[in-house]
């Protein structure tokens, strides 16, 4: 059985059908991509699976357990982490605080611990700080640890989002356009980091991308979404040569 399974998911915004009869299966450790023109419904699919919206119809299961009806933080703590297309960082918090915050669901000291600063609190906070520092090192932002995120360069802010999502210890990582707005150099770094994260931590990755090179190089399987419907699904080389994809999404451009 697949790690994450989505069956016949359909969603309406009022009268508008944003997603139609969407199916997805992700195996542990797999890297999958979701491409499609602007407004195709890619981010909507992310929001539906992560619980921000509730699908009008359909089934979503993670390790065989139903996700529909759960609140976003419950879905996240079951091991489904995500980043956002437009950075959603907490503007008054430091990088270290960001990454530690994502350990929220792992905290056991409770309010009593928080109020009275019990030894248990110190033990858990120290442990979480250690994990956070390791993750920051992994994505290359360790030197920014005590800086407020808004003071960081854009590429580093993206990596903060990634480190924060990794702190959840996800089984699946959803990346919503991880290279959006990056210059070629930052893009190269980001791809390197995503690859490294995947080899070291081994979780499944589901990513939305606009840049064909990124999807083609990173993903094992790719879905193409147009107007809320999957028009093609397959390996990168199949997608690259699929006439429907070329027509609907890539236009007449040459894919490099």
């Amino acid at each position, binding site marked *: 059985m697949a790690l994450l399974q989505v069956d016949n998911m359909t969603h309406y915004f009022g009268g508008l059908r944003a997603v139609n009869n969407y199916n997805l299966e992700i195996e542990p450790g797999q890297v999958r991509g979701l491409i499609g023109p602007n407004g195709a419904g890619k981010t909507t699919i992310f929001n539906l699976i992560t619980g921000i919206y509730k699908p009008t119809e359909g089934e979503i299961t993670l390790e065989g357990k139903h996700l529909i009806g759960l609140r976003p933080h419950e879905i996240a703590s079951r091991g489904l*982490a995500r980043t956002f297309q437009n950075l959603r*960082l907490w503007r008054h918090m430091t990088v270290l*605080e960001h990454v530690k915050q994502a350990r*929220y669901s792992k905290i056991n000291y409770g309010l009593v611990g928080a109020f*009275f600063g019990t030894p248990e609190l110190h033990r858990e906070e120290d442990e979480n700080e250690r994990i956070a520092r390791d993750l920051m090192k992994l994505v290359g932002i360790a030197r920014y640890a005590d800086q407020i995120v808004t003071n960081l360069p854009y590429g580093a802010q993206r990596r903060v989002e990634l480190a924060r999502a990794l702190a*959840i210890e996800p089984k699946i990582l959803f990346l919503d356009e991880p290279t959006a707005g990056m210059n070629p150099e930052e893009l190269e770094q980001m791809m390197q980091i995503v690859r490294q994260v995947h080899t070291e931590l081994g979780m499944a990755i589901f990513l939305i991308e606009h840049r064909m090179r990124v999807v083609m190089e990173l993903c094992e399987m790719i879905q193409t979404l147009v107007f809320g419907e999957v028009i093609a699904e397959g390996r990168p080389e199949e997608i690259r040569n699929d006439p429907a994809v070329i027509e609907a999404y890539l236009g007449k451009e040459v894919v490099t």
Partner: protein
Amino acid sequence: MAVTSGTMSTSRERMSELRARITKPFVMVPMLGWLLGALVAVVLEQLIGLQLARAFGMPRIPALFGVGIALENPALFPSAILYDFLIYILPVALVARLTATPANWAVTKMFNFRSWVTVLLHILLLYIILHIWADISDYRLLVVRLILIAILWTLSLNIINGYMGEFSCSHPGFIALGAYAASIFTVGLFVNDNILGQALLPASLGRFMFPIALILGGVIAALGAILVAVPSFNTRGDYLAIISLAFMFMVKSLFENLEVVGGARGLGSQPDWAGLPTVFLWTILGIWIMNNFVRSTLGKALNAVRDGETAADAMTVNTRRTKFTAFLFGAFWAGLAGGLFAHVIRYVNPSSFGIQMLAEVLAMVYFGGLNSIQGSIVGAVSINLMGEALRPLEIYKWLVIPLLLIIVMIRRPTGLISFTTFDFTTLIKPKQKPEGEV
């Protein structure tokens, strides 16, 4: 243009140079040195304050640094300044400077022994200073206790408005619930009163039950906070402000119409159990617990909810529980401090928990600084001291203080000291010789 910017920068340079020259002798003074200086100053005032004040032509020891006396009779302005200089500034500066080296040595020794003992000794010293200072007059004693209570109110409102970023206006409501609940408990059980009837238990027992009364006040306030917390799940910004404002008026009119607790006439004859030690202890406890909370990851979740609820949710933060906790926690301390307030004033009246109190507490939070323990302490102390010291101005007081607030809001929109982490241990650490800097 070039000329003006040139003079600007030189005058600014001159200012910072001047500041550096003044602070330079004191960079090595640890907190202990300042406390010792303050101790000498307050003892000095006890011993020769009255003679000195009379010698300068003042009728009595200036209650709050002579501002009141100078405002009543401007001719005494130089005397007040001179008095402050001789009694406070000079001894504090001298003692702080002279004891810097031994104080550093002593603090280092203490830290090597046990850091919590060091912290407790500093707090004890602070209490002794406050006690001696407040011993001069009943008025000072009242002001000190009210300021300590205001610190708790400000901090607890800062939890909701600053740390979590919801604009809640319900604080006077929580304070009223706490004040009434604690008063009903103490007056009803331990005092013969014509509203609540005969005492049920001997008054001697009451002193030990006082913490229970205060905690009961806090719990009742927290229960009230549920009414505001639940709408906050789906409402933010202006709407929550209106809902919480409505809650404040509901509580006020509830007590106005509840004849069993005195209605609009209020409830009096609270026993005199909220002395300076009691109020001081609860304030320290409150600061400690609230500071622990906001520094833990559970407490930082408030910041995450404020700065981006969707992201907080996606990062496993239970946003509903977080909001609930913040409201109930803030309301608990507001209510507990409300109970203290009722027993300091020894009379509660629904009209004191209205829009004026709301304005004052909000002013303290926003003046002192959002998301900051130090900020709240500074805000509560300065607004209260100003409010008391400028009392002779009567109605014009309410021109001066809001004007100051406007200036601070323009220059520093988030308050004097905002977005900081408070660590008492760092504050009292021995001072090292600055390396590279200065």
